[in-house]
C-alpha cells in the first residue's frame, strides 16, 4: 500500500512482519487492513494485535461458549459484563467471576498471583459491587520438584499479600499437584462482591460530549504485550525474558480505588465504569464504546504517566494495574475529580464520548490512530475448532509413590499425606479469611465457605476442578467438577444460584486439545442444564503448554448458592459422641481406576470415567441440603479424592473426635474408590432415620473415642493428623 493511503503523513507503517511478531496471523493482518481500508500505523497495529489476541478476543472459544446456558430468573448480569451477578433478595445482589493469571504466575509467581487477585477484584467493583471475598484455584507440578515449591510458596505469598492488604477475605480455594503442571502452573482467582441493585452500573459509554476520566494509578511501561505475547502463546524456553510483561501489583492503591469507585457510584456521579485489565486503555475504551454504540476520542497526552517519554502505543496498551475508566457528564466532572482527591487517587479527563463510530487516539490534539470500534471489538475473527479424539493416551502415567498391595493401614496414611489430600492449612493460614466479618464457615470447617449476607441469609461458595479426571474423560470429568461444587454447597445447606468457570486448556489449534475443550464445554452445558444452574460468566485461558506438553485440561468451576440461615450451615467434622455415621448416596462400588490411590500407585489413566445420573445425584444433594437446613445433621462431608475412608478420617480430624466403623466389606475399591454423589454424615439415630426416608443410606459406624477404628485396624487421631499435616514441610 502506498504512503498516501494513511492519513498519518510521514509515519512509518510497521507492516505485516511486525504484525506477525505481535501475534497476528498474516490472514488476520490482511483482514485488519481490509476493515481499516489501509495498513494500520504503529498505534493501530498495537491495538489490533491485543484485541484480536486469544486472551481478549476469545477467537477459539467464543463459538463454544455460546452453547452454555446463561439464563435464570435470579440472574441480574450475565456473560459480557465485567462480572456476572445474581439476586439474593431485599434489593441485594451478589456478583462473582473467576479468572486466570497463569502465564504471569509461571514467569513471576508472587506478582503474577497478586495481580491476578487485583484484576478479578476490579471486575467486581467495576459493576458497582463491594468485593467481599476471594477464592483461589491453584495447580502445580509434584511438590518433590524444587521449581514447584518455589512457585507454590511465592504464588501463595502473592495472593496473601494482595488479598490481605486490600482488605478482602480469602475464604477458600483448592490446590492440586500433578506433573503436567510442572512448567505451566495455573493460578485462577475468583472474587465475589455485594451490591445494592440500584447502585450497579454497566460499562456501556453513552452521551456524546460526556467526559472520559481515567483514575487510579499512573500509567507506566509495565505489562506491555501481556495479553498477546504472554497470555496467548505457549510457554517455552527463556521465559525469564518475558518478566517485563508481568505487571506489579499495589494493593494499597487498589484499596483506595475500591473506596473511590464505590463513593463515585453511591453519589450517582457516573454514567458508566470499566476496569483496565488486559490490553489496558485499548480494550477498556473500545469495549465501553462498543457496548454503548458510540465513538471515543482519547488524548494520550492527558494520561498521567510514570515515565515522561512513553510513545502513544505504549500508553494505549500499558497494563499498569489499579486503574479505572469512567464516563461522566461534563457538569459532574469537578465532583468526580474531588472524590479522587479525597481518596488520594490520581484522576484526569483524558477524552470524550463522540457521536461517531471510531476509537480515535490523539496526542496533544493531533490524531495518531483512528480505528472503527466495530473493527476492534466485533470483527475479531472467530475460528471453528477441528477437534479429534486422540488415538493414543496423551499423558504419561503418574510416577508411582506407593507400592501395590499395601495394607489398608498404610494406604490410608499414604493417602492422607499425599499432596492432593493433605491438609491445606499451611496455605490458607496465610490468608485473612475473616476481614469483613461475614465469614460463617472458614476453611476446614465445612466443604464450602459460607458468608452471612445483609438479608440475614447466607451464601455458600465452592471452587473445584480435578484436571486428572477431566484428562481421563473431558465430558464426564467436567460434569464431575460441577457436581463436586454442588455437593460442597449441599453439605452446608446451599442451593446453587449460578456458576462461573475458567477453562484452562492447551493450544486449541491442536486437534486433541480442541477435542478436550469441546467435550468439556459440552459436559459443562449438559450438567448446568440438568441442574438448572446458569453460567453467569467466566474466562478462558488457552495455550497452557510447556516444553513437555499440555497441562491436564482444567475447567475450574466456581459455584455460588444460597442458604436461609448462615448459622445453620453444615460442618464437616464429627462433633457428638454416640452419633450414627452414615454413608449416603452411593449404590455401586466406586471404581479405583482414575482415583487418587491409582495415581499414587502410578497406574496409567483409564480410558473413561463411569457415567453419572445427574438427576439422581441432584436428588441426593437436595436430601442432604434439606437435612442440613433443618439442623438435623451433626456433620456432613462430601466424599471426594481418596474415597470413603479418607472422608471419614477427615471428618474425625476436623472434629477432633474418633469414629468406630462397622463396615464388613473391606474391599479396597469400597474404601478408596471414587465416584460422585457420596457423602459421610453423622447425626442422632432419629435424624439418620429421617434422612433415610429421602435417600438410600447405609449406617457404617458411630462417633466416639480418640481413634479411627475399622475391624482390627486402629489409627490414633494423632497419627492421622501427623500424616494429614504433610504439606507443612513445603513451608519451612
Amino acid at each position: 500500500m502506498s504512503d498516501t493511503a494513511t492519513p498519518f503523513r510521514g509515519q512509518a507503517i510497521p507492516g505485516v512482519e511486525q504484525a506477525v511478531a505481535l501475534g497476528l496471523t498474516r490472514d488476520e493482518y490482511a483482514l485488519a487492513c481490509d476493515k481499516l481500508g489501509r495498513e494500520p500505523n504503529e498505534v493501530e497495529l498495537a491495538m489490533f494485535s491485543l484485541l484480536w489476541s486469544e486472551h481478549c478476543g476469545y477467537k477459539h472459544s467464543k463459538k463454544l461458549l455460546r452453547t452454555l446456558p446463561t439464563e435464570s430468573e435470579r440472574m441480574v448480569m450475565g456473560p459480557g459484563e465485567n462480572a456476572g451477578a445474581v439476586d439474593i433478595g431485599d434489593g441485594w445482589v451478589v456478583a462473582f467471576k473467576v479468572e486466570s493469571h497463569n502465564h504471569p504466575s509461571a514467569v513471576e509467581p508472587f506478582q503474577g498471583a497478586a495481580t491476578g487477585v487485583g484484576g478479578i477484584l476490579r471486575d467486581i467493583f467495576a459493576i458497582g459491587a463491594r468485593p467481599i471475598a476471594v477464592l483461589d484455584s491453584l495447580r502445580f507440578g509434584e511438590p518433590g520438584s524444587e521449581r514447584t515449591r518455589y512457585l507454590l510458596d511465592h504464588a501463595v505469598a502473592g495472593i496473601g499479600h494482595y488479598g490481605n492488604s486490600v482488605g478482602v477475605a480469602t475464604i477458600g480455594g483448592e490446590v492440586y499437584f500433578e506433573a503436567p503442571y510442572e512448567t505451566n502452573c495455573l493460578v485462577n482467582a475468583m472474587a465475589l462482591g455485594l451490591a445494592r441493585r440500584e447502585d450497579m452500573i454497566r460499562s456501556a459509554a453513552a452521551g456524546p460530549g460526556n467526559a472520559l476520566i481515567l483514575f487510579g494509578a499512573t500509567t507506566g511501561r509495565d505489562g506491555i504485550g501481556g495479553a498477546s505475547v504472554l497470555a496467548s502463546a505457549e510457554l517455552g524456553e527463556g521465559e525469564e525474558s518475558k518478566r517485563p510483561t508481568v505487571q506489579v501489583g499495589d494493593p494499597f492503591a487498589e484499596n483506595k480505588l475500591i473506596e473511590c469507585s464505590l463513593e463515585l457510584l453511591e453519589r450517582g456521579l457516573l454514567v458508566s465504569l470499566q476496569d483496565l485489565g488486559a490490553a489496558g486503555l485499548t480494550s477498556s475504551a473500545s469495549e465501553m464504546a462498543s457496548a454503548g454504540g458510540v465513538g471515543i476520542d482519547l488524548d494520550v497526552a492527558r494520561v498521567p504517566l510514570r515515565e515522561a517519554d512513553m510513545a502513544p502505543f505504549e500508553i494505549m496498551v500499558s497494563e499498569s494495574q489499579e486503574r479505572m475508566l469512567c464516563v461522566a457528564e461534563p457538569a459532574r466532572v469537578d465532583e468526580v475529580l474531588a472524590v479522587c482527591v479525597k481518596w488520594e487517587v490520581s484522576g484526569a479527563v483524558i477524552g470524550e464520548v463522540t457521536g461517531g463510530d471510531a476509537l480515535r487516539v490523539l496526542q496533544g490534539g493531533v490524531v495518531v490512530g483512528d480505528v472503527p470500534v466495530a473493527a476492534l471489538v466485533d470483527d475479531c475473527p472467530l475460528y471453528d475448532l477441528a477437534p479429534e479424539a486422540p488415538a493414543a493416551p496423551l499423558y504419561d502415567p503418574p510416577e508411582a509413590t506407593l507400592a501395590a498391595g499395601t495394607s489398608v493401614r498404610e494406604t490410608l496414611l499414604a493417602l492422607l499425606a499425599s499432596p492432593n489430600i493433605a491438609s491445606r492449612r499451611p496455605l490458607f493460614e496465610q490468608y485473612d479469611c475473616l476481614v469483613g466479618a461475614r465469614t460463617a464457615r472458614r476453611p476446614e470447617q465445612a466443604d464450602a465457605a459460607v458468608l452471612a449476607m445483609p438479608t440475614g441469609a447466607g451464601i455458600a461458595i465452592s471452587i473445584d476442578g480435578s484436571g486428572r479426571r477431566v484428562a481421563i474423560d473431558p465430558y464426564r470429568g467436567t460434569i464431575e467438577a460441577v457436581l463436586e461444587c454442588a455437593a460442597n454447597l449441599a453439605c452446608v445447606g446451599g442451593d446453587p444460584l449460578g456458576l462461573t468457570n475458567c477453562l484452562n486448556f492447551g493450544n486449541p489449534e491442536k486437534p486433541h486439545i480442541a477435542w478436550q475443550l469441546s467435550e468439556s464445554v459440552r459436559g459443562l452445558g449438559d450438567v448446568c442444564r440438568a441442574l438448572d444452574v446458569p453460567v453467569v460468566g467466566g474466562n478462558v485461558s488457552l495455550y497452557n503448554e510447556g516444553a513437555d506438553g499440555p497441562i491436564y485440561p482444567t475447567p475450574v468451576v466456581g459455584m455460588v448458592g444460597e442458604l436461609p440461615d448462615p448459622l445453620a450451615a453444615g460442618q464437616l467434622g464429627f462433633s457428638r459422641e454416640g452419633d450414627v455415621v452414615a454413608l449416603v448416596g452411593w449404590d455401586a462400588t466406586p471404581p479405583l481406576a482414575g482415583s487418587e490411590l491409582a495415581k499414587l500407585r502410578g497406574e496409567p489413566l483409564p480410558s473413561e470415567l463411569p457415567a453419572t445420573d445427574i438427576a439422581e445425584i441432584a436428588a441426593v444433594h437436595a436430601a442432604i441440603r434439606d437435612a442440613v437446613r433443618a439442623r438435623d445433621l451433626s456433620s456432613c462431608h462430601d466424599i471426594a479424592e481418596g474415597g470413603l475412608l479418607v472422608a471419614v478420617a477427615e471428618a474425625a480430624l476436623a472434629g477432633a473426635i474418633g469414629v468406630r466403623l462397622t463396615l464388613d466389606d473391606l474391599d479396597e475399591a469400597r474404601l478408596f474408590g471414587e465416584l460422585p454423589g457420596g457423602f459421610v454424615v453423622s447425626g442422632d439415630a432419629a435424624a439418620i432415620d429421617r434422612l433415610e426416608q429421602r435417600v438410600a443410606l447405609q449406617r457404617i459406624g458411630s462417633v466416639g473415642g480418640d481413634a479411627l477404628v475399622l475391624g482390627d485396624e486402629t489409627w490414633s487421631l494423632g497419627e492421622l493428623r501427623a500424616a494429614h499435616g504433610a504439606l507443612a514441610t513445603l513451608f519451612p
Partner: protein
Amino acid sequence: MTRFGVLRFPGTCDDDEALAACELVGDGVMLWHGDSDLQGVDAIVVPGGFSYGDYLRCGAIARFSPAMASVVEFARDGGPVLGICNGFQILCEAGLLPGALLPNIGLRFICHQADIEVEHADTPFTQACEAGELLSIPVKHHDGRFYAPPEQLEALEANGQVVFRYVGDAPNGSSNGIAGVCNERRNVVGLMPHPEHAVLPLHGSEDGLKLFASAAQVPAGV
C-alpha cells in the same frame, strides 16, 4: 452512653467491624485520618489493616496524620485508646505504647483463632474481664512479634503492663508470649488479636465483645 471514635486511614481494613463492635455496646462514629477533630468522643479505637499500604514499617506513616496528633493529646489527657493489630503498631510508632512489632518469626502472614489470657483487668478495655480469664480471639497479621529491649521488657512485666498473653506458643514469636500491652498510665491498650472479629455468634466466639463492653463502662470524660 459511651461514644466511640474509630479512626480510619487509607488502607485501614477492619474499620467497619470495629465500629460495629463499638455500636453493640455504645455509640460510634468514624473519624477520618486527615481531620484533627475527634468530635468529642469518649474513647478511641485505632483499627486493623494496612494504613498507607504499610510499605514502610507498619504504622510508621499513619502516626504522622493530623488525627493522630489529636489522639496523642487525647491519650495524654487520660482518654481511653485501644489499638488493634495495625492500630497497635501505629500506637507504638506514635510513642503511646512501649515496644515494637516485628515481622512474625516464620516471616509469613498467619490467620487463625488464638487463645489469649487476660493478665490484668485494671485497664479501660479489660475491666469487664477477670484476671486470668481466657479469650478466644482470631489473630491475622504479618508483623505481630512484640519486641522490647530486655530491660524494658522486665519493666513492663514488673509494672503489670502486659495485658494479654498468648496461651501456649505465641504464633508470631513474641517476647514472653505477649499479645497486648498498655502504657504506664494504663489508659492506652494495644493488642495484635482482633476482638472486633469475636463479637457475634456468627464469629464462633463472642469473647472480644468484653473489651468494648469494658470501655462502655467508663463514664464519659474520664
